[in-house]
Every structure is written in C-alpha cells, then in structure tokens.
C-alpha cells in the first residue's frame, strides 16, 4: 500500500513570532474601504465640501459650518474601522490572526490618522484654490496645519465612540451627536462656563486656529485639539484591550 504520508513543511527559519508593523498596516488599509459605500461616501464628501466652499458667500477661508461635513466623515470613518468589526464578528477573526490587541489598535489609529490627515490636506488646498476677496487675508501655515489636524482628531473621536458603544446605529448616532450636534447646541455665549465648555469642543478650537474666530488663545486651541486626540486614543486603547470580544 503506497499510502501517502503527510509531511509537514519545515518551519522557515525566518518565521516570526510577532507580526511586523508593516504587515499589520496593509490589512487595516484594505479593510477600510469595503463595503463600496465607504469609498464612495469619502469621495462624495470631498466633492461636496469643495462645492459648498465654492458657493459659500462668506468671504473667509476655512469657514466653519462648511467643514462640518468633513468632520463628520472623518469621525464616521474612524468609527467604521472599529464598529463594523464588532458588529460583524470580524473582530474575532482579526484577534485570532493578531492576538496583540494593543498593536492592533495602534495600527488602526495610525491608518485612520494618515487617511484623515490626507483628506484634510486635500480639502485645505481645494479651499485655498477658490478665489476670495482680498479681505480674506493670506493663508498662513498655521491654518493649513489646523486643517490637517482636524481630520485625525475627529477620526480618533469616532474610534473611541465606536469602542465604547459597540452597536452600529448607536455609534453613528453618537458620532453625529458628539462631533456635529454638540457644537450646534453649545455655542459660545456670554455665560462664563458655557463659553469655556463650548470652546473646549474641537469644532470651536479648530475655528479659532483656522479662521481666527473666538477668543481663545492659539496655544490653548492647539492644546484642546491635542487633548481630544490623546484622550480618544487612550479610551480606544484601554477599552479594546480590556473588554471581552
């Protein structure tokens, strides 16, 4: 009987125990775009933002309400990386492939930061390209930097909301509420504490940096944006590390 004996392939000498970071980034990038509406929605956001900015009768660059659309889109993109995996159960397969949760979260965050920063840069240059009256003033590097930073802040906030609320619809509601509705309902008013609270929102900090509106000082505005980003990342990090999947 010439039975075939199964022979296990010899383990290659270069087999690694830990996944390389570059190996982790590629799958996260690939998982970002399907289903088809994610890529389509991102493209639509870019087009929509440019169109709105073009028809904006206000004579300033980086006028705040029009940037609500990219803010939301960045937040939802960040939420998408986390919540779709939870909702579909894909997270279990991912964690079996890459058991080190901390690296996984770090890589996801890095991919989101990269993508949203690029989105912010593209939109900033699109906005600059639109001719405005001379009263708008010259565009400073600080303004462009603020636009580039806005995307990652929103994306990380989206990830944090998704990590806390693992349900699809509730996450979408949460991201819309935190990034979009809070600024509308907590507008800077005369009252001292309401004024401070509303200034602490990323929307108003960014407005201060990008279009010089409001009374915050520049370092405080940068600090607020940084604080939101760091806090959101830490929340995502800790929650995904600790919770059962």
């Amino acid at each position: 009987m010439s039975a075939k004996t199964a022979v296990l392939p010899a383990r290659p000498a270069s087999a690694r125990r830990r996944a390389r970071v570059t190996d982790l980034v590629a799958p996260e990038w690939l998982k970002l775009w399907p289903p088809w509406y994610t890529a389509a929605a991102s493209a639509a956001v870019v087009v929509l933002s440019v169109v709105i900015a073009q028809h904006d009768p206000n004579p300033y660059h980086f006028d705040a309400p029009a940037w609500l659309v990219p803010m939301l889109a960045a937040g939802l993109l960040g939420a998408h990386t986390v919540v779709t995996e939870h909702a579909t159960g894909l997270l279990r397969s991912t964690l079996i492939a890459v058991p080190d949760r901390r690296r996984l979260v770090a890589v996801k965050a890095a991919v989101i930061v990269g993508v949203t920063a690029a989105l912010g840069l593209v939109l900033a240059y699109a906005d600059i390209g639109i001719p405005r009256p001379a009263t708008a003033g010259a565009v400073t590097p600080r303004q462009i930097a603020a636009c580039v930073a806005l995307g990652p802040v929103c994306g990380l906030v989206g990830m944090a909301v998704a990590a806390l609320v693992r349900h699809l619809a509730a996450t979408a509601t949460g991201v819309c509420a935190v990034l979009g509705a809070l600024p509308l309902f907590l507008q800077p008013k005369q009252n001292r504490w309401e004024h401070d609270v509303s200034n602490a929102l990323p929307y108003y900090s960014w407005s201060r940096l990008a279009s010089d509106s409001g009374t915050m000082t520049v370092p405080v505005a940068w600090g607020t944006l940084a604080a939101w980003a760091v806090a959101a990342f830490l929340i995502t990090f800790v929650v995904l590390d600790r919770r059962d999947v």
Partner: protein
Amino acid sequence: MNTTVVTATTAANIGITDRARFRDLVAAEWVKIRGQRWPCFLAAFCVLWDAFAAWSSARHVSFPPGAANSFNPLIYPFDDTAWSLLAVLAATFGALSVAGEYSSGLIRSTFVAVPARGRVVAAKALVVAVCAACVGLACSAAALPIAGSELAGKLTGLGPTGPGVPIAVVASALLLVISSLIGMAIGALVRHPAGAVTAAWSALLFVPELLGSGSVNLPAAAEGMPVQLWTAISHTQPQSPQPAPLAPAPVAWLLFAAWPMISVAVTVWVVRRRDV
C-alpha cells in the same frame, strides 16, 4: 404516503384570502416597538432634554423695565435649537424602526406573515407617528411649566390658555410626527442602520444648519425645512437683528402637511418595489 384526506385545520386554512385587519397590523407593530428597550430610553431622554433646555434658556433672561410686553414668551419653552435635536431624535427613531428590520432580516418574516407590504408600512407609520406625537406632547408638558416658573415675575403667558400656546403645543407634536416619518422614508431608502441614522441627522440637522448659516445660499430651501416651518407656525422665532426669512403661515401649514404625505408615499413605494 399520498393522502388527500386533509384534516379540518388544513381544509379551513386552504385558500384563505383574508385581508389583514389593520388593527392587527397596528398591534403587531406596537408589540415590536414595545419589545425593545431603547425607544423608552430615547423618549425619556427627549423629555429630560427639553426640560433642561427650557430651564437653561429661561434662566438668565432679563428685560428692560416696561419692555416685557414686546417679548414673546414662547421662545423659551419652544427653543428652536432644542427642538431641532428632538426632531432629529424622532427621525432616528423612525429610521431605525425600518432600517433595523431590514438589517436583522426580520422584514422577511414580516412580509411572509403579511404579504401586503403597503398596509404593513402604513401600520408602522401610524404607530411611529403616535409615539412621536406622545413624546412631543410630553416634552411640551414638561417645558412649559419649567419655563413659566423661571420667567415668573418677568413674563407671563405660558399657561395652557396663554396666547399661541395651544398652537405651539400642537405644532411641536406635529413636528416630531413629521420628523419621524421622514426618518422612516430615509430608513427605507438606506436599509443600513448606521447609514440611515447618519442620513437622518444630516437631513434634519446639518443640512438645515448649512442652509441657515449662509454657507449655502438657498434661502427658499432653508424656509422649507421642517424646523423652520415649525418656527413659522408656532411663532417662536427668537429675536435677532437679522431674523431668518420664514414662510408665511398658510404656506407653512401646507408644507407641514406635505412633508409627511410625501415621506409615507416614498416609503410605501420603495418598500413595495424592492426585493427583500
């Protein structure tokens, strides 16, 4: 094992062509909503939010002496910012009631149980609208006394029979009804819960905000949005140096009636047309 002798049960059930009784469909939809927990929390949050908004908007108001009569007391309990959020939450409720069924697959069981899709949608719309109206009434009932007590001594006219109060209460309840039905239409078009929620928030909050803040220059569209129509009907526009243009009252009522009819028609058409 071929037998054509059927039992009494089977025989009586063959060839049944009963129309589903509408009240059965409505009862079934109510059971579906009652069986979930989040609608309850959402309703409670709405009432609390409106109470808080009424309190915070009426708190630090002060009028120059003698000029109190020219201020409209209705703008405090019926603050348009607060009620925008309520409208959005109502739309979320409507959107999830449809999109949730599609995404979980329950819609298949529902349409096998009752193939008449249009009637199912009508029953669902009725239940959703009634829930939204009840929440709207509860919110008004919470906001009016709270605003009234904060304004006591400065402004009057917020009692149940005060000028314009009944119309404002009715219009507010109708605003939530309209928003929830718009949400249902969005949920039927975008059958994915997260997408439907995002579309609902965009349509009812962000788009009107963009239109209203002047970033997008379409004043006619801005006037036609549900919250703006509600403001026109209930005369709750806050004083400001440059008030946003509002549609005149008869036109506003017309549009107020048109929104829900169009939404329900769209929902029924989309649901009947598409494969499940």
